[in-house]
């Protein structure tokens, strides 16, 4: 392996040896250390095997990136250490090593990367390799990627590689081609008042058929087409993806084709913006190994189309994309009431309304003898435009941002959530959970560089764990220090009413940040963009250091 790394780096260097190495080296470093402490109320201790209490007591996640870049070449590597991974991260990360290394050469016409790379075609519904460190998600490719610019306005990307899964790689090989035609650049003499870009992609994966039961496709292909049109303040973009038969563990080995469509339009002027998105996903789980599940080896990314919540209680019921079939929409509007108006007052008032929902798709039997989704069949028939009977998710967010004075700013939020826990999380919580969440955030500047922020949050629900209360107070001395205390209290829990207090403290010094948190973590599901991981309840001290250079 060491020799392979050397070859990967040295051959391109020798090939392009006429290039002057006049670049610079940069990088960043981060390490998190968590010491876990027994907790009676959480029943979090070494004697309770269901509590995930680690025998090591101290766990560590970390990474270091080193990048050399010059005008025409760049190369880099990333060292990662999980000794052992923090609770909630996939256990497959246990270990350490160089997980990412690449060499890249580029000029005006061509861009070649060998080694590891991330990539996205269009919206990502056909191919997206990316890293989301907070989720422990990394599906980077290792292989070769080429980008070509034949003539102005026509761009091609081509790649072949295997995807990362923890410290190893997939058995499956992914091949991809993406083309993009920017019509305004191709026909620049016509001087359009609008812009139109068209894209076409094709992706296929190869995986050997070792399954005795099924006659499986070893090469699975998918194609997509997309466009982006904008006219003055309007934008309209859409992408349609179709995937050929791809029986897998996730779809119960049905041989039905998959497809997905995503449409997004927005209009914005000063003080007002509106966005409407719609999507339909049908059997579009696409992985480089057919027996994988969870977040492992996903080739594509299917967006959740819900608001990305940041307030603690609003993240208790996060939506995770249901890749086997869902359809939904999202509406988002921002409006700023002008200064000196009735609602605007002296400083103006910001209003954000967001509504999103997601339903199952229509599914019908292919014949009387075959159940819906029966393994080894075409699975089901679906009316493209008909909405299914099961509601997965619905959420209404109303946020008002009001500056009261030069020193005081208030943000109040109301969230109404319908959350089908059995369908989203795949196991029976409480079926549909209905929750109302009320949040008030206050930001107050005490004096220059000194500010105080607090949050009061209330979650009301009759289902699951019942009501929650949360309070936070944070004091910042910018740009160097911050101190925070927060407590979450599960007041409506009929079995255990538990407090989850945490204390945080952080220092920024130059390009280095050091922070520490002591307290309890509630059990739950943590999601970013519809991709989620399950986090167990714990208690402990987290030390974190990160630095860039």
């Amino acid at each position: 392996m060491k020799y392979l790394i050397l070859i990967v780096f040295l051959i391109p260097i020798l090939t392009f040896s006429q290039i002057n190495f006049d670049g610079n080296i940069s990088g960043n470093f981060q390490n998190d250390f968590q010491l876990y402490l027994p907790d009676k109320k959480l029943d979090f201790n070494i004697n309770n095997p269901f509590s995930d209490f680690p025998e090591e007591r101290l766990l560590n996640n970390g990474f270091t990136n080193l990048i050399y870049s010059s005008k025409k070449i760049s190369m880099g590597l990333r060292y990662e250490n999980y000794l052992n991974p923090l609770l909630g991260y996939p256990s497959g990360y246990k270990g350490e090593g160089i997980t990412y290394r690449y060499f890249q050469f580029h000029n005006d016409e061509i861009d070649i990367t060998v080694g590891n790379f991330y990539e996205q075609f269009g919206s990502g519904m056909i191919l997206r390799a990316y890293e989301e460190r907070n989720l422990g998600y990394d599906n980077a490719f290792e292989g070769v990627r080429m980008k070509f610019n034949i003539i102005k306005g026509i761009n091609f990307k081509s790649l072949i590689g295997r995807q990362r899964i923890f410290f190893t790689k997939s058995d499956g090989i992914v091949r991809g081609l993406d083309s993009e035609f920017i019509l305004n650049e191709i026909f620049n003499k016509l001087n359009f008042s609008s812009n139109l870009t068209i894209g076409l992609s094709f992706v296929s994966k190869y995986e050997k058929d070792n399954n005795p039961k099924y006659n499986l496709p070893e090469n699975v292909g998918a194609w997509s087409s997309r466009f982006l049109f904008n006219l003055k303040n309007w934008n309209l973009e859409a992408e349609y993806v179709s995937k050929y038969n791809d029986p897998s563990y996730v779809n119960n080995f049905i041989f039905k084709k998959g497809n997905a469509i995503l449409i997004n339009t927005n209009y914005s002027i000063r003080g007002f913006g509106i966005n409407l998105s719609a999507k339909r996903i049908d059997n579009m789980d696409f992985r480089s190994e057919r027996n994988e599940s969870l977040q492992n080896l996903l080739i594509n990314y299917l967006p959740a189309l819900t608001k990305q919540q940041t307030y603690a209680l609003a993240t208790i019921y996060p939506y995770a994309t249901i890749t086997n079939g869902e359809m939904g929409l999202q509406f988002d509007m921002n409006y700023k009431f002008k200064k000196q108006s009735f609602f605007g007052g002296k400083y103006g008032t910001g209003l954000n309304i967001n509504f999103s929902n997601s339903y199952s798709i229509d599914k019908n039997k292919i014949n009387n003898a075959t159940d819906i989704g029966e393994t080894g069949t075409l699975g089901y028939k679906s009316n493209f435009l008909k909405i299914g009977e099961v509601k997965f998710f619905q959420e209404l967010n109303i946020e008002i941002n009001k500056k009261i004075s030069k020193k005081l700013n208030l943000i109040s939020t109301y969230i109404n959530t319908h959350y089908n826990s059995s369908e989203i999380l795949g196991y029976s919580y409480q079926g549909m959970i209905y929750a109302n969440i009320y949040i008030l955030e206050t930001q107050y500047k005490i004096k220059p560089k000194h500010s105080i922020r607090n949050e009061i949050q209330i979650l009301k629900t009759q289902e699951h764990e019942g009501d929650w209360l949360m309070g936070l107070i944070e004091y910042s001395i910018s740009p160097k220090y911050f101190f925070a205390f927060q407590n979450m209290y599960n007041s409506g829990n009929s079995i255990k009413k538990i407090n989850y207090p945490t204390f945080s403290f952080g220092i920024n010094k130059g390009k280095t940040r050091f922070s520490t948190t002591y307290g309890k973590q509630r059990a739950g599901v943590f999601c970013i963009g519809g991709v989620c991981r399950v986090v167990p309840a714990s208690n402990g001290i987290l030390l974190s250091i990160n630095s860039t250079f």
Partner: protein
Amino acid sequence: MNNKHIFIFFLTIHFFACDIIEEPFINQMNQVNEYCDEYYFGYPNNTKRKILLEYYTGHQCSTCPPAGSKVSELLEIYNDDLIAISIHAGFFARISSNYPTDYTSEVGNDWDYQFGNSDDGPPNGLVNRVNFLNNQHILKYTEWEENIINQISLTQNLYDLQIQLNSSFDENEDLICIDSRIDIGNYNQNDIRFKIVITEDSLISRQKDESSPNGYVENYIHNNVLRKSLNGSWGVDLNNQKSSQIFLNRYSINKNYEWNINNINIIGIIYDIETYEVLQAEKNKLIN
């Protein structure tokens, strides 16, 4: 052809990489030729657990003959307890003008792909495929005996899993008929599969041998050579197994013209789907 044409050709090759599968989507296995008469099994006499040694080799592997000798020695010692399969796969099993006989098989290649033995460098082997999940399954031939002893001492057929085999050959039809009876005993763990393969003994051809003055042995005897699977590379599910449940599976296959019917063995294997560990094995000479 200018650069743009070459480039477009290069890009379009992607579009050929797609398979579209037509029905039936499920492999039709376990279909037996009508000329095969069903065999009715009696109660088994011997229910002890047998150990499976799968050793990976190749006729162009000059360090492999000592491993072959070791297998013969182990079969002598642990005769009643041990079943061996020789899998020719990977680089050292390739054919060439001096080594024209192809001993590789589809099932052997699939197993090699899964377990990674030829990548690890033959000779090596698996004893009951234990420790696959923690990647310590591949054993040097010097480690085989210790692991066989461990397996014998560890497992006195804990679950009482039983395989019975009966085979016959119809000369008129050139047809091999096999009946199997599997008794689940008191097994109640992970899902399991049943696999049935054909091996052949006494195949004589040239074998590289570093200890030979010529660097090869002209008339080397290859025993236990894996020839064919009768139910795919990974066998059939023994679904929803319940205590004492009996599975009767019947197979038939036309004799390959290269096979010497007197040297053919039938081997049945039960293994754990999750761990791949072999839980029971049985071997029958096709013609006793």
